């Protein structure tokens, strides 16, 4: 039997034999046996180290495979970035479309209101018999123009309102995209937790956020992060008035 392939039992048997041979005084046989035991032991140690290395390697490999970290880093996170950019683009487009419709409609509404006011006053004069025939002719021509204008403008206003309505379709689409990104963020979070677990919590404690107290943080999201935030405009007004505003 080759000492490199010896099992634990075989090594033990040779070791017992070695003691017997030494007691008998057979130095040459004893030396051979000692050599055998020594080589075999060394090999067992190497085998053990090898096994552990393999296990570690397998653990890391399976972690990589199970967690899809490669795929997350290479594809899904850049994808998510693109998706979120698309959300910005869509909401921007929708806001622009809505604003354009409103900007076109507002002056029309103002014009109708103003013209109706003017006509109403002249009509009142007519009812009070304060208009001359010439003035009445003017009034009836104005009313005719007004009615034609209203017919045209209200049709444009209706189209614009329809446009505002249709511009809200982003909500459904962006909602779906954002939901997917939230799922991805959850998955990444799970993987990071697993990674920390595998590395045996050897990470340093989280560093406190040292940013200046008044550095911009963007919109406050209810239930998230920062303390000491005002809840609404009334809070702002109270705070300012306490400062002498």
């Amino acid at each position, binding site marked *: 039997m080759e000492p490199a392939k010896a099992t634990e039992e075989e090594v033990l048997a040779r070791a017992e034999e070695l003691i017997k041979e030494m007691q008998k005084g057979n130095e040459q046989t004893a030396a051979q046996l000692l050599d055998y035991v020594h080589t075999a032991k060394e090999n067992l140690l190497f085998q053990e180290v090898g096994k552990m290395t393999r296990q570690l390697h397998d653990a890391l490999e399976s972690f990589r495979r199970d967690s899809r970290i490669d795929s997350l880093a290479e594809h899904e996170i850049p994808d998510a970035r693109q998706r979120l950019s698309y959300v910005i683009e869509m909401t921007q487009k929708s806001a622009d479309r809505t604003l354009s419709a409103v900007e076109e409609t507002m002056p029309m509404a103002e014009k109708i209101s103003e013209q109706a006011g003017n006509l109403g006053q002249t009509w009142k004069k007519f009812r009070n018999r304060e208009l001359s025939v010439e003035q009445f002719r003017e009034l009836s021509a104005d009313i005719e123009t007004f009615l034609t204008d209203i017919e045209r403008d209200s049709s444009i206003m209706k189209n614009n309102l329809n446009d505002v309505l249709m511009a809200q379709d982003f909500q459904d689409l962006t909602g779906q995209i954002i939901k997917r990104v939230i799922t991805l963020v959850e998955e990444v979070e799970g993987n990071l937790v697993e990674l920390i677990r595998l590395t045996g919590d050897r990470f340093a404690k989280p560093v406190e956020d040292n940013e200046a107290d008044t550095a*911009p943080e963007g919109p*406050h999201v209810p239930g998230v992060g920062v303390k*000491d*935030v*005002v809840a*609404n*405009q009334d809070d*702002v007004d109270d705070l300012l008035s306490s*400062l002498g505003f």
Partner: protein
Amino acid sequence: MKILIVDDFSTMRRIIKNLLRDLGFSNTHEADDGATALPMLKSGDFDFLVTDWNMPGMQGIDLLKAVRADAKLANLPVLMVTAESKRDQIVEAAQAGVNGYIVKPFTAQTLKEKIDKIWERIEAA
């Protein structure tokens, strides 16, 4: 009345512009951050400044400080319209000499109230 609206989002500038127009202020101009706004303020005869806080380039709070530090602009009324809502930030803006502070999201009514209040104070002073 010539008003400068400073915000990095064009939609927000448009909203404020439309609200101001509705309140009777139709002479409005736009800038997308403090760095663009400051030279406009220095060279133009603006009567009122509406600014966001969080912008790339020069922040609104720094624009406010620069305005107050400039002899010619020091008395320009400044209304901050921003999503920044920490108490420390509001205190800092107040200390820097802001005339009004509106947190987003806001209503047309709030904008009107704050502008009216700023003018009342200026006229009373």
